């Protein structure tokens, strides 16, 4: 069994690495973008999927990460890889601050507050006070890193593998974080806050921490995105980005790590698909596909897989729904 598991893991890893050697630059760029979206959606999943706090503003955290990275690279000469933790930290800080209103607001009200953030950030990025850093409406052109001399890879292949490695690392971190006591506390807050509190869970701490970690991961995705696209501008982070991430989360299946990957695929490829179907009204086709996806897979791609795959093939990385809580509130073990 263990050997089989290892083999499966190796097979999966090979499958992910293979495109770097098989695909053209443009296709690799698409896959790289998808990996970046997957990380961003993973971040959103922590606060919305697992902790139940709806955020329509994660595009703002993504933008903060992207700008932090771009500014550090172009104006302070940081190496590209070092900008990722910095972008994540900057976004996490803002996320932590946003976590406080989340203590008092729930459901649609919190969604609106976060949405306000998504609407405000592109405007703030244009502000004159910040222009010497942000470049105003013109944005910042970033030079993508060349692969290290000892690697015989194209720039696209290298960026893909680099992004893949970062994404894998973050998914692993998330998987470890989303386990045991912490996971149960988050799910308890999501499913029955009152009972969670009665059981001794510090709701404020769970929520603000979830917000900070969530924003931080999405911020790392932003910094990655800046390197991959080689450009940041306020128009890159319109409020629609936040909505796209939310769509990815729901379509992929919330509270599921593989779901984030499926959601990213939807965000990356379905608009293109819609365009090939009908050039004059891609929005309509996109809408129809979205409704169809939700109708056919009401709990997202991850939910559909859970129902159809035989139990032994299921991974243990989808604990949100896979480990249902026994008697809400009654037998949760905390602290």
């Amino acid at each position, binding site marked *: 069994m263990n050997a089989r598991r290892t083999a499966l893991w190796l097979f999966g890893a090979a499958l992910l690495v293979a495109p770097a050697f098989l695909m*053209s*630059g*443009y*296709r690799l*760029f*698409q896959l790289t*973008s998808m990996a970046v979206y997957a990380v961003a959606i993973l971040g959103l999943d922590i606060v919305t999927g697992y902790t139940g706090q709806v955020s329509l503003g994660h595009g703002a955290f993504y933008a903060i990460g992207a700008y932090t990275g771009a500014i550090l690279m172009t104006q302070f000469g940081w190496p590209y890889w070092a900008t990722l933790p910095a972008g994540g930290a900057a976004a996490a800080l803002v996320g932590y601050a946003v976590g406080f209103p989340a203590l008092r607001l729930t459901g649609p009200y919190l969604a609106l507050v976060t949405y306000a953030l998504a609407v405000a950030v592109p*405007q703030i990025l*244009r*502000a*004159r006070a910040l222009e010497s850093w942000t470049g*105003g*409406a*013109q*944005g910042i*052109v970033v*030079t993508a890193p060349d692969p290290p001399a000892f690697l015989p890879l194209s720039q696209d292949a290298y960026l893909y593998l680099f992004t893949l490695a970062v994404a894998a690392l973050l998914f692993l971190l998330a998987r470890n974080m989303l386990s045991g006591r912490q996971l149960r506390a988050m799910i308890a807050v999501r499913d029955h806050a009152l009972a969670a509190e009665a059981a001794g869970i510090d709701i404020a701490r769970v929520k603000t921490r979830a917000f900070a970690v969530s924003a931080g991961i999405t911020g790392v995705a932003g910094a990655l*995105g800046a390197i991959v*696209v*080689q*450009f*940041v*501008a*306020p*128009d*890159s982070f*319109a409020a*629609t*980005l936040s909505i796209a991430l939310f769509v990815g989360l729901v379509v992929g299946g919330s509270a599921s790590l593989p779901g984030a990957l499926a959601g990213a695929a939807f965000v990356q490829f379905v*608009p293109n698909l819609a*365009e090939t179907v009908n*050039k*004059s009204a*891609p*929005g309509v086709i*996109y809408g129809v596909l979205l409704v169809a996806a939700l109708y056919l897979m009401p709990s997202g791609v991850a939910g559909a897989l859970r129902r159809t795959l035989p139990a032994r093939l299921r991974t243990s990385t989808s604990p949100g729904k896979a480990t249902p809580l026994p008697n809400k509130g009654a037998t949760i073990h905390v602290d």
Partner: protein
Amino acid sequence: MWTRRTLLATATAASLAPLGRARAAAMPGVTATSIKIGNTNPHSGPASSYGAIANAEVAFFKMVNDQGGIGGRMIDFITLDDAYSPPKTVEQTRKLVEQEGVAFLFNSLGTPTQTAVRAYLNSRKVPQLFISTGADKWADPEHFPWTMGWQPSYRTEATIYAKYIQHEKPSGRIGVLYQNDDFGKDYLLGLKDGFGAAYDRMVIKEVSYETTDPTIDSQVVTLQSSGADVLVTAATPKWAAQTIRKAAELNWKPLHFMSNVSVSVGSVLKPAGLENAAGLITGAYLKDATDKRWDNDPGMQQWRQFMAKYMPGADLTDGNHVFGYGVSVTLMQVLKQCGDDLSRANIMKQAASLDNEEVPTLLPGIRVSTSATNFHPIRAMQLQRWTGSTWDLFGDVITA
């Protein structure tokens, strides 16, 4: 089964392949019977009204193909949606270059979106031709020899205003109201180009606003109290309307020049009050499809026939269709000049060798000219004045 025939065929193919490849490498996107051209445009999202430009181009190239194509080649024009989002523009542009293998990019739209792909296209030596943006930075052949705009830049427009003021009102005291970003600052640069050494004497007040300011009232009051009798406003529509309205409220009647991105009747003049805007001056370079004076104009008749046949039912008052037609005609001239050498280098070279070309939808007297050092295809405009009910062209064409 390997027969002698298949062996022979394979051998022949193999020996011919390098030849074919060599030719394809020299002229990517071009075959003996076709030329592939790419474009990105916002077909969806908040800026999707610009999609009309690309739609007009699709129709235009269909017309060209119906008439036998260009030099015996059919035009395969591919326009992709970028929703005005720079990351999407990068993706779609790379798709066009790497997947579709287009010869070049034509009239893609947007300043941030095109900034995002400029380095990529220049490093790959793919022409980024006649892009739809008014920023002045595109005319930089020294650093970006594969990039060229088409329409007069904001800076060119402001230079034209300066020239007119110097000629008609040399003792004018000029106030400038500008949006504090690259768009607004291009106008300041243009006025400096136009006035030269006289700038400091003529411009007595520069006032800026932020798009985050709630109103523009205090700026207008400041300008009025500075004693200016000429006002140049470099504002986007919402602020333009506020400026016109506030000046009227203050009963201030300067000779008012307005950025030509903010002269739409629907989105600026009506909100400002059609009467309040009377006397407003702006620069124009395209013929206005709603202007009666062009009813019998051969150029606009040509455009109307095109619209009737290839875009039936489309909005004839939408200036984007006039724009799309004009820029496409310019491209046809470039391709004609290329003859049989449709290599990327020659396409760029011919685009930079346009000599006083006439375009049917441009105002009479406005021609398209470029050179190895001049990447501003249109450098002239004619002024027009709002009468309270229509735009009225006046004076000569002014070249920046």
